[in-house]
């Protein structure tokens, strides 16, 4: 099957005026990536790392300075209008809804814009309203919606024409925990039922952990990492942490094979041990701990991805 996104040496430079002098700024630098249909990719990087510029080139808004890009097998700039029928984009910051119209009316216009047949429009709207739980505010003008409601309406608007590729730019920014959770569940379901490809930029590592099976990290326009989350932890040497709650106070649990004692709380009632996921397993570390003391409860903490990204950045400099 052909790739849904394919870039080769994709580069975009900007001329910025710095007082009187002009200087060239490379926003995206020699980016070569291939995304297969059905993948869910997290596109991560600091502010100004080049995420939005990449998205704009993928959707035909910006012309690359050099390199090539194909999206859904089309050339984004040349075939923009055909591509628009296959891609849905959610910008966290800018709306595609009509602020003074009820949500339902906005959907109706978008259906006309994408030339959906009446039956398809009805079925798809019903599906989205149901899955995103929008029935309560369908007749409310967009400007009166809460942020969480508006975001759900935005996502529905971008997905109304059932695009093959959905690009989400900071979809959960500013949302409360419940709204985030709902949105993530919806995206997971959408992907499962329609085989939609997801590409999302985010600052929220929860989004990446829940939604993505692949991570691209971009730093100063360059691809710094391409792989899965586990591999990312490995690549940066981030360790998993076993937290144990013990029945009684006990001395620090040092000397467990392939594990390191990090800290003890409340006279050793709760202790934290880090271990390298490559060298041992959580079960083995736990078994070694259980041999020495009586364990009441335990959890395993995954490496914090923000920390991992920071490490990747640090290692590259």
């Amino acid at each position, binding site marked *: 099957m052909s790739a849904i996104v394919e870039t080769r040496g994709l580069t*975009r430079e*900007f001329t910025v005026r710095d007082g009187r002098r002009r200087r060239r700024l490379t926003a995206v630098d020699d980016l070569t990536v291939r995304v297969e249909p059905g993948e869910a990719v997290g596109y991560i990087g600091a502010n100004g790392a080049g995420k939005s510029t990449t998205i*704009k080139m993928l*959707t*035909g*808004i*910006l*012309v*690359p*300075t050099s390199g090539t890009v194909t999206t859904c097998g089309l050339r984004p*700039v*040349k075939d*923009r*209008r*055909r591509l*628009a*029928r296959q*891609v*849905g*984009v959610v*910008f966290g*910051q*800018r*709306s*595609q809804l*009509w602020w*003074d*119209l009820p949500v339902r*009316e906005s959907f*109706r*216009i978008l259906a*006309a*814009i*994408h*030339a959906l047949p009446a039956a398809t429009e009805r079925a798809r709207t019903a599906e989205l309203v149901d899955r995103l739980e929008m029935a309560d505010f369908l007749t409310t003008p967009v400007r009166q919606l809460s942020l969480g409601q508006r975001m759900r309406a935005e996502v529905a608007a971008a997905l109304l024409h059932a695009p093959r590729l959905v690009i989400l730019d900071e979809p959960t920014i500013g949302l409360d925990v419940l709204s985030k959770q709902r949105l993530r569940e919806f995206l997971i379901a959408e992907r499962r039922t329609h085989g939609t490809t997801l590409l999302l930029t985010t600052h929220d590592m929860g989004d990446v952990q829940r939604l993505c099976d692949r991570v691209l990290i971009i730093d100063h326009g360059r691809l710094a990492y391409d792989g899965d989350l586990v591999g990312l932890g490995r690549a940066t040497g981030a360790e998993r942490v076993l937290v144990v709650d013990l029945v009684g106070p006990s001395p620090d649990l040092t000397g467990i094979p392939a594990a390191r004692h990090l800290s003890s709380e409340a006279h050793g009632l709760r202790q934290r041990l880090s271990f390298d996921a490559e060298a041992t397993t959580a079960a083995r570390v736990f078994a070694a701990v259980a041999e020495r003391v009586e364990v009441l409860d335990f959890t395993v903490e995954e490496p914090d991805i923000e920390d991992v990204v920071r490490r990747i950045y640090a290692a590259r400099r």
Partner: protein
Amino acid sequence: MIFLRRSGGPRPGVTDELALRVRLRPYRAVLASRARSQASYRANFALDLVSSFLAALVELAEVWVLFHAVTRLGGLEFHQILLVFGLADLAFSLADLAVGHCDNLPTYLRAGTLDVFYLRPQPLLLQLATSDITLRRLARASVGLVALIAGLAVNDIAWGVGAVALLVVALASGCATFAAMFVWAGALQFFLIDGAEMTNAFVYGGRYAATQPASVWSRPLKAVFGFFFPMAFAGFLPTLRLLDLPAPAWLPTWLGWCGPLAALWAWAMALLCWHWGVRHYRGGGG
């Protein structure tokens, strides 16, 4: 049987019409909803109508006041100027009603909403032009229409097919020319930061110039609004022709028929600028 099969088959005219309707559906949906939402705030809408009606009336009054001081302006008398004003103002108001909100482009650029247009399967310019309609401008158009009707009534016109055709041609091409001006002004916003002031000087200055006899314009104005932005073709030149008035030495009266050429020229310039603007926005290439 054969007859039945024939009549049941797709007729090319019908399928063309259907395809066109499907094509126009997006624009119709947007415009209808914009119109509905404006009309739904009744009191607000009524106030809007009244205020733009008054504004247009003041502009007409300006011309009238002017004729208290002089009896002739650029070789034309008040009742003749009324025709120039009516033709040009109606053409301008209709263009303003249809594409005047191209002024909004700077707002769209700043807010990034233009990117949203890129994500829809219609041409950008058509999306922008049909993204809104400002119904209160109907009030302004009504003043132009009344001035035109009055102008036609009080002047001595040799009515015939030629006169009617000239009127229609002048009005349609004047409207197209003004619409091109709006597109041109919008396109320049891609390059200019806060450039609306500058382009407005030409758009609204052009409107004002068009409602005056071109014979009173200074030489630079003649160059700018006579030919570069062909405003004289909207009101002045067709009026000369319609009333069979003596034209200034530098103008042959058959120019009154050349509105369509002027419109074509204006649109060529507008589309070229638009194309450049979009290229600039996208950052070259494509």
